[in-house]
């Protein structure tokens, strides 16, 4: 056998003889990045949550304490937590309901050109700037915006006014109401729900649906006993995105919605203007805990059994 002793050839030979060497070379940089830069700074932040701030001097006291976590339970702070978790839950639920039929259509019926249109339709909003999308929505939802105009043209302004007068979810206009915040969250995170649900449905062979019908199940029963259980891992995967992204976001509620803050805004303000880094860190721990609890419950309910 003639030896092709080029440098590339010899490197390839060396890797072939020691496959682990290649694996190590490939893995070390990302592991360092993830381990030190990413997780390291996260843990540094979390460590801050066990410190406290001296109320008179404004300096950080580096003794271990749970006092900062106690602060979270002050009514004004606890409201922020409840509000954010409720919003994340509502957005996730709505995203699942809106995404399912779209994903189902794409997985079962669309092929060729329609599949391309589906992917473009879902992905295109992800390619444009997040800020542009949020400001667009502010215009759509504003008092002078297209939605108001539409309701007026249809002589249905009274419906919108009646809705906006509901305390809690209403407001002067949609763009300064909780409903507005909710709508923008729903729009911005929807692709993150559609894609995993579609991927899960794509893996369900049509013979399985036929088998269900063959065994006497009407389409509604097939949906309940076969399709939904098999789509559940996808819905859970999507909800991890929608839920955690909503929990941590601080820009959308700043631009569209009321003055009541969400966790992300609280973190932003406490670490910035207020200089209370321990409290900001404690706030940042909450979404991590909530996600942990959420995934544990999902696992207990068998959401990952079909994986």
């Amino acid at each position, binding site marked *: 056998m003639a030896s092709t002793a080029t440098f590339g050839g010899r490197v390839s030979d060396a890797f072939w003889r020691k496959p682990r060497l290649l694996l190590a070379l490939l893995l070390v940089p990302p592991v360092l990045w993830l381990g030190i830069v990413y997780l390291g700074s996260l843990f540094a932040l979390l460590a801050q949550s066990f410190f406290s701030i001296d109320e008179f001097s404004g300096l950080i006291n580096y003794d271990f304490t749970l006092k900062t976590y106690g602060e979270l339970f002050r009514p004004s702070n606890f409201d922020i937590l409840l509000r954010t978790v409720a919003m994340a839950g509502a957005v996730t639920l709505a995203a699942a309901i809106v995404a399912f039929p779209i994903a189902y259509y794409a997985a079962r019926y669309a092929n060729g050109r329609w599949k391309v249109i589906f992917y473009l339709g879902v992905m295109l909003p992800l390619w444009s700037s997040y800020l542009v999308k949020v400001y667009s929505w502010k215009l759509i939802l504003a008092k002078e915006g297209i939605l108001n105009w539409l309701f007026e043209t249809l002589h249905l302004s009274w419906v919108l006014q009646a809705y906006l007068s509901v305390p809690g979810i209403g407001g002067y206009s949609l763009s300064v109401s909780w409903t507005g915040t909710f709508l923008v969250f729903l729009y911005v995170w929807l692709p993150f729900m559609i894609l995993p649900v579609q991927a899960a449905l794509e893996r369900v062979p049509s013979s399985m649906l036929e088998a269900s*019908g063959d065994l006497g199940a009407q389409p509604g029963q097939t949906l309940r006993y076969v399709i939904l259980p098999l789509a559940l891992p996808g819905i859970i995967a999507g909800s991890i995105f929608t839920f955690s992204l909503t929990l941590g976001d601080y820009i959308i509620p700043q631009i569209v919605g009321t003055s009541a803050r969400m966790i992300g805004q609280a973190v932003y303000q406490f670490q910035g203007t207020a200089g209370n880094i321990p409290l900001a860190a404690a706030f940042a721990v909450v979404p991590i805990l909530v996600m942990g609890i959420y995934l544990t419950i999902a696992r207990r309910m068998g959401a990952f*059994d079909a994986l």
Partner: protein
Amino acid sequence: MASAVKFEATSRFFGDTRAVDDVTLEIEEGEFFAMLGPSGSGKTTCLRLIAGFERPSQGRVHIFGQDATNTPPYRRPVNTVFQDYALFPHLNVQDNVAYGLMIARVPKAERHHAADEALDLVALGGFSKRKPSELSGGQRQRVALARALVNKPKVLLLDEPLGALDLKLREQMQGELKSLQRQLGITFVFVTHDQGEALSMADRVAVFNNGKVQQVDSPLVLYDSPKTPFVADFVGSSNVLPVEMVQRLIGVAKLASLRPENIRLAEDGLVGTVESQAFLGAATRLEVAVDGARISVLLPKGAELPNDGSEVHLAWDADALNLLEATNG
């Protein structure tokens, strides 16, 4: 005897493709009926028309005397064993088998009991709590069978159920399916591309080609008296003798089929040249060139074998030559 399934001039088109083309067919109650044909011949579409997964483009489908043309699958008294088994991956074996009963609102204890009985029937007792992913191909196939049978269907449809199994297991399952059908007395409709499978199991076989039924007969009649060149070739790969040769031999201007094993080497007869031979175990197959046509001859083991290139005389009993209808394809 009432017919279990009846096709009346039934067609199913997919765009320009005539998957099932004007099929009229009656399957009798309690028989083991095979639909045999190459892939794309329309046999599976016919099965799906019985199950209700497809609707006929023309014609009607009757099940036990009732017009089922517009009946959805979930209202038909038939159950299917799918080619890929289509077991529900999120349910254990017992819940898979009990699925139909669960839909029919049979109480839990009762349906689990029935499921376990059905699993005993297919020799899978004790596998109730396993997941389908923990079973072998043969075991999944049995679960699919139990899942269909537990609903006591009037007709059981089987779509190439043995296709994915290895040879040994396939032969074993052929015997088991046959005895199961005898034991239960249910009408079995079985789709296969394997002529050996169809011949060994079925009471009657319908041979499909290009969406049309070529012939419906018992395996013996199908083998001995094929009606068309396609059937002669597809079922047991007969020689099809060209019209001129038959004209010369017996004075009839028709195609004829002749089984390789019915031909013997003799002192005189049809003259040909041995082109090649292949040892098959119990027999040896000679390919003999005769007047530009090629005739296969199957010689039993122990017979004297001619050399390649040598001249031989072929002879057969008069009734071995089977005249075919002129239609081809």
